[in-house]
């Protein structure tokens, strides 16, 4: 397939680099200030070298990537709240041209799910978004295989940064600020960790799962989620949990029409108490009990592999 990749950050870059491995051709690559476009396939290495050297992948206007020749648009620009722009506009532009869309960007399906589905209905193109929930983990495709109607609840650890901080605090008996600074040094936490430690990122993923489980019955957005983060958890709380054979994890839950994210007590040896940056999702199925899916929830190549798995699921034009 021919791919137009919007966004040349950790994810977009990896998608562009790995696309050839999966038998696809990148015909456009854009970042916030420029683009490179070629219907026969761009020179990915050269574009990424240009980005390294000049800060942008090419001299064309970013919008030219939207007008390029492609079968599927890969949306990997920053996740934004509210109107979910510029991601939503990119989705719209592709669907109006009857092209497929594969999202890494959570915004459009977390904040404007019904709008995205409405555009998809009018289009010959499909929208897939496995990468938006749990990076490399096949969460949405598993839900799809089982049929959302037969899944009663989902819960899990959906943010590696928060999980890293909580597991380090518990293991080393260190305070939140100390471990956060360490995580920032290691590149596990961003300079501004708000999205991760206040639970917003995990909540967006839960909202997406809630949308998929609810189908056409109800639309969820971040506003429907009850969200608490981990920044006010002192070391003493983890200590008391440990004394009792438990630990604390930032858990997202989708059950009975509610989306909730917050610090929860979980048994120390439970499947849910993964450590480090690892993620896990548990699905409660109607006929097959509980299903655990765990793995790397983030990272450029990890997320790109989920994007490319989606590209592989698309019907050939």
């Amino acid at each position, binding site marked *: 397939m021919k791919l137009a990749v919007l966004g040349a950050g950790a994810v977009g870059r990896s998608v562009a680099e790995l696309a050839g491995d999966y038998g696809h051709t990148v015909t456009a690559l854009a970042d916030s200030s420029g683009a490179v476009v070629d219907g026969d396939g761009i020179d990915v290495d050269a574009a990424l070298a240009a980005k390294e050297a000049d800060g942008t992948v090419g001299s064309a206007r970013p919008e030219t990537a939207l007008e390029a020749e492609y079968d599927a648009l890969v949306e990997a620009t920053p996740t934004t709240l509210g109107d979910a722009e510029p991601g939503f506009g990119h989705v719209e532009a592709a669907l109006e041209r009857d092209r497929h869309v594969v999202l890494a960007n959570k915004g459009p399906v977390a904040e404007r799910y019904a709008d995205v589905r409405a555009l998809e209905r009018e289009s010959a193109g499909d929208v897939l978004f496995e990468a938006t929930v749990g990076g490399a983990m096949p969460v949405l495709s598993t839900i799809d295989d089982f049929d959302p109607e037969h899944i009663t609840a989902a*819960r899990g650890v959906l943010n590696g940064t928060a999980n890293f901080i909580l597991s380090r605090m518990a293991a080393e008996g260190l305070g939140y600020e100390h471990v956060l600074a360490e995580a920032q040094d290691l590149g596990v936490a961003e300079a501004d960790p708000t999205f991760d430690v206040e639970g917003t990122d995990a909540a967006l993923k839960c909202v997406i799962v809630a949308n998929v489980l609810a189908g056409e019955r109800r639309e969820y957005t971040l506003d429907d989620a009850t969200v608490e983060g981990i920044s006010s958890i002192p070391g*003493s*709380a983890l200590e008391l949990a440990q004394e009792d054979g438990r630990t604390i994890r930032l858990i997202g839950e989708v059950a009975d029409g509610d989306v*909730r994210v917050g610090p929860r007590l979980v048994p120390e040896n439970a499947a849910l108490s993964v450590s480090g940056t690892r993620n896990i999702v548990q699905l409660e199925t109607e006929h097959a009990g509980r299903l655990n899916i765990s793995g790397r929830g983030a990272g450029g190549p990890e997320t790109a592999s989920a994007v490319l798995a989606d590209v592989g699921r698309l019907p050939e034009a």
Partner: protein
Amino acid sequence: MSDSQDEVRAYTVRLELVDEPGELLRALHPIADNGGNLLSIFHERGNMTPRGHIPVEVDLEATPERFEDIVEALQAENFNIIQAGAERYSEALTIVLSGHLVNTDLSHTLSHIQEATEATVTDLSLSAPEGTEDVSSARLRLATEAGNADNALAAVREIAAEKELTVVEPLTAGGDA
């Protein structure tokens, strides 16, 4: 669960006592005399009902038959029984509270939680590594009626929000692992 009449089960009796010396002991006699095994007594001293009575909650074990005798004996002695039932407390919830627990009056927080949630705090551990003036944490185990866990948690959340405490909740129903 078997319905055997010989099986010893846990019961909770809520009584209202007149505020007079010896009333509590007088209320406990019918329980012991009829073969009930006392588990715990929660005496909410200083907490009056609108009628000026003191609510008391007694957990006991007895066979169903003996329990009936106990209730009859209490009524015969003119005790005001508000509630008597089997296994009211069949769900245990563990939560951790963090924040300025001591400055915000921990004992008030606890009694508030017991009242609002109709639950009993059966276990409490406090950790205040920086001293009680600083942020500390408490782990509580709440015993609550079957099916009342969600309400109990909602009440805890509300009290915690009022006092600006952080609550770490257990997973909701079905999420035991």
